[in-house]
C-alpha cells in the first residue's frame, strides 16, 4: 500500500535528522575518543578525531551523497530535545542489482540500551525498502558485537556469510558476519 502519510523520519523517541555543521562536530569528536563505541561501529582502526576533522568528514559525506548518488545518511536525534544520539545510513548502493549496506550506531553512552537502535533500524529499513525500493540490504557485523547480532536477528536478518578471522582486535581474531534481509521478507514481517 502506498502510504504517503506515515512519517519516514519520526519514531516514538527518536527521529532522523540532517547533519548540523555547527553543533555536531564537537559531539562526534567525543564519540571518536570512546574506543569502545568506535570498535562497535567501525572496522577500521580506532582514531580519535578533532571537531575540525569531523567537519571535513561531513564535507566528504555530502560530496559523496551529491556525486555518487549511492549514499543516504541520517543523524539520529532525540525527539524530546533534538540532541544528537547517533547515526544511520544506507551506503554502497548497487542500484542495478538492488543492494545496499546498512549501518547504524548510538554514540551517546547514556542513550544506549533504551530501544533506540530498534526504532532507528525500523525507520532505516522502511527507507531502504519503501523509499529506495532496494531488493535486499546487507549488514556486516563483527562477531563480538553481541548487541548488533541480537538486533539484526530480532529483525529477521539471515546470517549469510561468515568471513573467518577477518578482524584482528584486542589480540584476538574475530569472524565478520554478513546479515541479509530481502524486501519481500521485510514486507512479510510487516504484514504479520
Amino acid at each position, binding site marked *: 500500500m502506498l502510504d*504517503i502519510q506515515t*512519517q519516514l523520519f519520526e519514531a516514538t523517541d527518536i527521529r532522523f*535528522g*540532517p*547533519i548540523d*555543521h555547527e553543533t555536531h562536530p564537537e559531539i562526534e569528536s567525543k564519540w571518536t575518543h570512546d574506543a569502545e563505541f568506535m570498535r562497535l561501529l567501525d572496522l577500521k582502526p580506532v582514531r580519535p578525531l578533532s571537531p575540525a576533522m569531523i567537519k571535513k568528514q561531513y564535507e566528504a559525506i555530502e560530496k559523496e551523497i551529491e556525486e555518487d548518488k549511492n549514499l543516504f545518511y541520517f543523524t539520529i536525534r532525540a525527539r524530546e530535545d533534538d540532541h544528537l544520539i547517533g547515526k544511520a545510513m544506507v551506503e554502497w548502493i548497487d542500484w542495478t542489482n538492488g543492494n545496499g549496506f546498512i549501518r547504524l550506531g548510538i554514540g551517546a553512552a547514556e542513550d544506549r540500551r533504551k530501544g533506540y537502535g530498534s526504532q532507528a533500524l525500523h525507520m532505516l529499513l522502511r527507507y531502504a525498502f*519503501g523509499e529506495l525500493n532496494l531488493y535486499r540490504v546487507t549488514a556486516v557485523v563483527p562477531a563480538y558485537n553481541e548487541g548488533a547480532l541480537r538486533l539484526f536477528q530480532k529483525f529477521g536478518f539471515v546470517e549469510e556469510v561468515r568471513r573467518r578471522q577477518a578482524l584482528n582486535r584486542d589480540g584476538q581474531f574475530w569472524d565478520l558476519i554478513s546479515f541479509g534481509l530481502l524486501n519481500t521478507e521485510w514486507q512479510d514481517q510487516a504484514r504479520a
Partner: protein
Amino acid sequence: MKDIYRGTLVRLCDESPEIMAKAFAKWDRDTEQHRLADSDPAMLLSEKKIKEIVEKRAENKQSAPFSIRTLAEDKLIGGVGLWVHSWSHSDAWLGISIGDREYWGKGYGTDAMRLMVQYGFIELNLRRISLGLHAYNERARKSYEKIGFKMEGRTRGDGLRDGVRFDSLWMGILREEWLAAQELA
C-alpha cells in the same frame, strides 16, 4: 503598472539563502509533503548543503525560483519556480511546493501558481509551460486545471514507493490559451 508579484493570498519573493535553507530543512521532515511534491528519495540534507543548492540555483540563468509568502502575515509557506528547459523552444518546467501543511487546500498554492504562470508568459515571454505530477496528487491536479493547464499525457508506473507503482501525469499550458483566458477574465 500591475504588481506582478502580488496575488490575492500570497506574493512571490526573493529570499535569502539562509532563510530558504532553514525553511526547506524544516519542510523536508514532512513525508506527506515530500511524497506529494517530489520524485526523488526523501533526504535530510544539512542547512549548509541546502543553502549551497539554493545559491547555485539562483545563479542558474535558466531558472527563476521564488519563495511564497502570505499577504496576511508575511509567513514563508513554500517555493515556486520556472526552469527554462530550452530558450530556443521557449518552454519551461514549473515546480511548486507548499511546505507548510497548514496552508494546503485553501487556495494559496493556486494563487502562487497563477502568479508564476503570469510571470512566465509576461516577463519571460515563454510560449508554453509544462509540469508533471504524481497521479495520486488529486489536489494538485484540480488546482492546475483551474489555472488552465491541460492534461497531455500519462507515463505508466514511473514511480515506485512502498512497493507500489504509480503513474506520472503531464500537463501543459500554451501562451495563446493563457492569453485567451485573460481576455475572458
